[in-house]
């Protein structure tokens, strides 16, 4: 029986100009004790769906049609007081960013127990007892201490546990988790997802898991609903959906994953999602669909049940469990994802070394009091060495706080190293005078994660693209104009972009402009710091393909920094894995990902949720606990405090050793494979 059913739910959001029809007749069902995954790109309406259920729509937002049936009662027709009770007591919600969903001025205990005090009128002491109990159940170490802490004293993963505890304290029957792990590192993500799974069984509740990550869905949900442009386009059991997706959008999404790259190219979905404030006819995916016909563009396509699958399923489950999709030309061929590795690209062995980093060290004063006294030094980068050859991509992966971005900024000359050498084209940039430094910037350029933040909002695109040329005094204004037009062609944007401001572009377009700006000075090396992590899968594929094409065309080298192993695996020729300021493993991309030698690398790989439900995550090398502080990092091997293989000898520092595939570990998992 279903706990929550949405029947033709429609939600509008009134904006300054016009109305956005955020949801258009959404039908969903969640049954007791099951996890429903809602997946879709940004703007697809997945968050609006859950906000409509919880009554938390943004200003101007309103449910304009349909029913929200919770336990058989329509929430839209309940009296306000009863509605508040149902939403407050029987539903719990976990938001994306644990930092902003906790009140920084309240102690953890008081926040967790707030619903009890509001809805049940418990005394302070009783509430505290209950808070400690629930914190223990979400796996919080030392809950009796934590209750008296403030949110800023906890790490991101710990905070998310607190938020989950808050949602669970009234024992809700429905838990809604909106991108619960997007702001977290993969190893923490895995812990949190496991926790939600365990709690679902323990509390016998239903879970709605909203995410953009197909991998998260594949490993955790029982059923999946795929949303696009305010509609559910396909719904099926997880196994069924990943085995045989029927909607062309679902297929395109899976093909766009870096894991499913074939022949070194990703399938990218052309164009952008439609503007929901305009009236739309026909299938909303039709303008971007390879298989669209005139019929798709004119007829309203509704969800239909997959006849074959329904017949097969009738004996065991009811019709609501059937595979439904809204597509006139559904997929009939099999879709294969995962396993088909990116083809190793041939980088000539004798290419010149363009960047050579030796024993790079960067330390910061840790929160001094302004009078020269400091509690210690933050060791952000501690003795990192690597080379990048011309035309090659070096990927650097690691969790937040491992120092990968600092390495990027040091190489780009934005910060000066505390020690070590950065040799670009034969010159050590640390020892340059002002003028030489100035021209060094022509060789190395930076590409940012959030191109919107990296562009002056008050400058037009032409001014933004001209800026590097002006600073380096390249050509006269006519030559600069030519160069800018050429750059726009290279990144596939129309000339009309020149007169616009950054806020008028979508994330993917901004990333193209950012890349164009990095290319303006014809650098030989581009340091790309998380260039696609803010983008949706389909747009990410466009940008990654573009970066690869330009690399082949211009002979660029990239230092590609990312927390996402699958993206790095696709982009990089060689991969370096960083942990707490140290490079723990460097080697050819294929080998690092498929035959990791360092236990940390293996743990990272295992923690990445695979978009293939048959891959069950093995518990073997899951690492627990939190990243130690970089103020006083562990001596010896920095990973030894969390390493399952650690022994006494690990207190001495292991050197980075090996041939092409180096590892810094006393007990490498594998011997180097002989090439």
């Amino acid at each position, binding site marked *: 029986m279903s706990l929550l059913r949405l029947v033709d739910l429609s939600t509008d959001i009134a904006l300054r100009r016009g109305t956005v029809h955020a949801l258009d007749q959404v039908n969903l069902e969640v049954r007791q004790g099951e996890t429903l995954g809602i997946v879709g790109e940004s703007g697809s309406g997945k968050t609006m769906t859950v906000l409509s259920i919880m009554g938390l729509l943004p200003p101007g937002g309103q449910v304009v049609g349909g029913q929200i049936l919770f336990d058989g009662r329509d929430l839209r027709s309940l009296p306000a007081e009863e509605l508040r009770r149902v939403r407050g007591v029987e539903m719990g919600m976990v938001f994306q960013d644990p930092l902003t969903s906790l009140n920084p001025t309240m102690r953890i205990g008081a926040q967790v127990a707030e619903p009890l005090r509001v809805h049940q009128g418990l005394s302070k002491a009783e509430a505290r007892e209950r808070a400690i109990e629930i914190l223990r159940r979400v796996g919080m170490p030392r809950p009796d201490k934590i209750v008296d802490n403030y949110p800023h004293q906890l790490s991101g993963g710990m905070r998310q546990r607190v938020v989950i505890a808050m949602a669970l304290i009234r024992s809700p029957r429905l838990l809604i988790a909106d991108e619960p792990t997007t702001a977290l590192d993969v190893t923490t993500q895995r812990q949190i997802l496991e926790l939600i799974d365990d709690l679902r069984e323990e509390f016998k509740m239903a879970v709605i898991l909203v995410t953009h990550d197909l991998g998260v869905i594949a490993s955790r949900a029982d059923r999946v609903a795929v949303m696009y442009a305010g509609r559910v386009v396909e719904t099926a059991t997880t196994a069924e959906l990943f085995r045989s997706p029927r909607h062309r959008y679902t297929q395109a999404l899976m093909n766009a994953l870096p894991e499913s790259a074939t022949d070194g190219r990703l399938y990218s979905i052309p164009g952008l999602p439609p503007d929901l404030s305009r009236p739309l006819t026909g299938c909303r995916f039709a303008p971007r669909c390879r298989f669209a016909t005139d019929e798709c563009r004119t007829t309203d396509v509704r969800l239909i049940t997959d006849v074959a699958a329904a017949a097969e399923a009738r004996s065991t489950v009811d019709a609501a469990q059937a595979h439904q999709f809204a597509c006139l030309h559904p997929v009939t061929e099999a879709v294969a994802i995962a396993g088909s590795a990116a083809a190793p690209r041939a980088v000539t062995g004798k290419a010149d070394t363009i960047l050579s980093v030796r024993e790079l060290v960067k330390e910061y004063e840790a929160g001094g009091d302004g009078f020269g006294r400091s509690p210690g030094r933050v060791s952000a980068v501690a003795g990192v060495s690597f080379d990048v050859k011309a035309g090659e991509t070096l990927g650097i992966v690691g969790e937040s706080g491992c120092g990968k971005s600092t390495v990027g900024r040091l190489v780009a000359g934005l910060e000066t190293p505390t020690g070590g050498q950065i040799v670009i084209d034969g010159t050590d940039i640390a020892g340059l005078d002002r003028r030489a430094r100035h021209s060094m910037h022509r060789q190395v350029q930076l590409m940012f994660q959030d191109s919107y933040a990296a562009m002056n909002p008050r400058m037009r695109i032409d001014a933004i693209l001209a*800026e590097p040329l002006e600073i380096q005094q390249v050509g006269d204004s006519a030559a600069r104009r030519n160069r800018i037009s050429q750059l726009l062609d290279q990144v596939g944007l129309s000339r009309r972009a020149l007169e616009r401001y950054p806020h008028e572009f979508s994330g993917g377009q901004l990333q193209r402009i950012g890349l164009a700006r990095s290319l303006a000075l014809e650098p030989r090396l581009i340091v790309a710091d998380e260039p696609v992590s803010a983008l949706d899968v389909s747009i990410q594929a466009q940008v990654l393909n573009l970066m690869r094409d330009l690399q082949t065309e211009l002979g660029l080298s990239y230092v590609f920094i990312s927390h996402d192993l699958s993206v790095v695996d696709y982009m990089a020729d060689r991969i370096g894995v960083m942990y707490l300021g140290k490079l723990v493993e460097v080697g050819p991309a294929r080998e690092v990902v498929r035959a990791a030698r360092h236990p940390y690398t293996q743990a990272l790989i295992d923690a990445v949720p695979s978009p293939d439900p048959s891959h069950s995550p093995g518990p073997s090398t899951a690492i627990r606990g939190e990243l130690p502080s970089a103020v006083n990092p562990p001596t010896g091997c920095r990973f030894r405090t969390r390493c399952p293989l650690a022994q006494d000898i690990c207190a001495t520092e292991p050197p980075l050793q090996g041939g092409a595939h180096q590892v810094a570990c006393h007990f490498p998992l594998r011997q180097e494979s002989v090439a």
Partner: protein
Amino acid sequence: MTTTTSVQEDEAPVRAMWRQGLEVFCENRLALVGVAIFALLAAFSFLGPIFYHTDQVHTDLAKVFLSPGTAGHPLGTDGVGYDQLGRLMVGGQTSIVVGLAAGLLATVVGTVWGAIAGFAGGWADAVMMRVVDAMMSIPALFLFMLMASIVTPTVPMLIVIIGAFAWLGPARLVRGEALTLRTREYVMAMRGMGGTGGRAVRRHIIPNAIGTVTVNATFQIADAILYVAYLSFLGLGVPPPAANWGGMLSDGLSDTFSGHWWLLYPPGIAIILIVLAFNFIGDGLRDVFEVRLRRR
């Protein structure tokens, strides 16, 4: 020339930023009211004398304290026989000119000072901001009085005196903005291209602080008009026969108990209206520069 996806077209018309800004501004009714009031008062002060001739130089002791409505004097006359309506126009000119000029001077000086201090940071910031702190610790009104009693206040002198003290506020404000703006990624991107600090201040810090600065400028102008009024009220304004609203208010106050209300209310109301007008305009501009309204 590349193998990338086709050029992405976007049919939305190119809209200039100022045009969008104008639309937002026009949505704020009070801001439009502010503009209207200011336009009316400015027209009254500067265009009024063309149509309504009065002698504001020679006193006429035969016509003192005529009440409003007396033939030829719709608002009556003051204690030395000047026509009150004509005097309001002349006084308005001084108030508006001094207010605008001093407000703008203070804003420009304060913005440049604050932007440099905030962007440079370190000891330069420390020294520059301690200068501001030191000057702020002296009560402005007291200093105005001191200065005004040393030098003879003429209109340019008033502008300089008021400007010299009013820039402290904008300096602090812009420094705060600069402190956050300098850590923005676009400033980092510019440094990654080899750009210098001067360029950062010129092209990135000041243009992005301009919203705050413009909003503040309107309040500065309102304040400057009030300062002129204070000084004149204390008898330290431009000497007669020149007039301004503050001085007229001061003169009128001494006649309150004689029942000469027409000497008191008109300049008082004019001051309130113009200060209010600039505050409304400032509010409207704040909406315009509120980027959150813009990005959707």
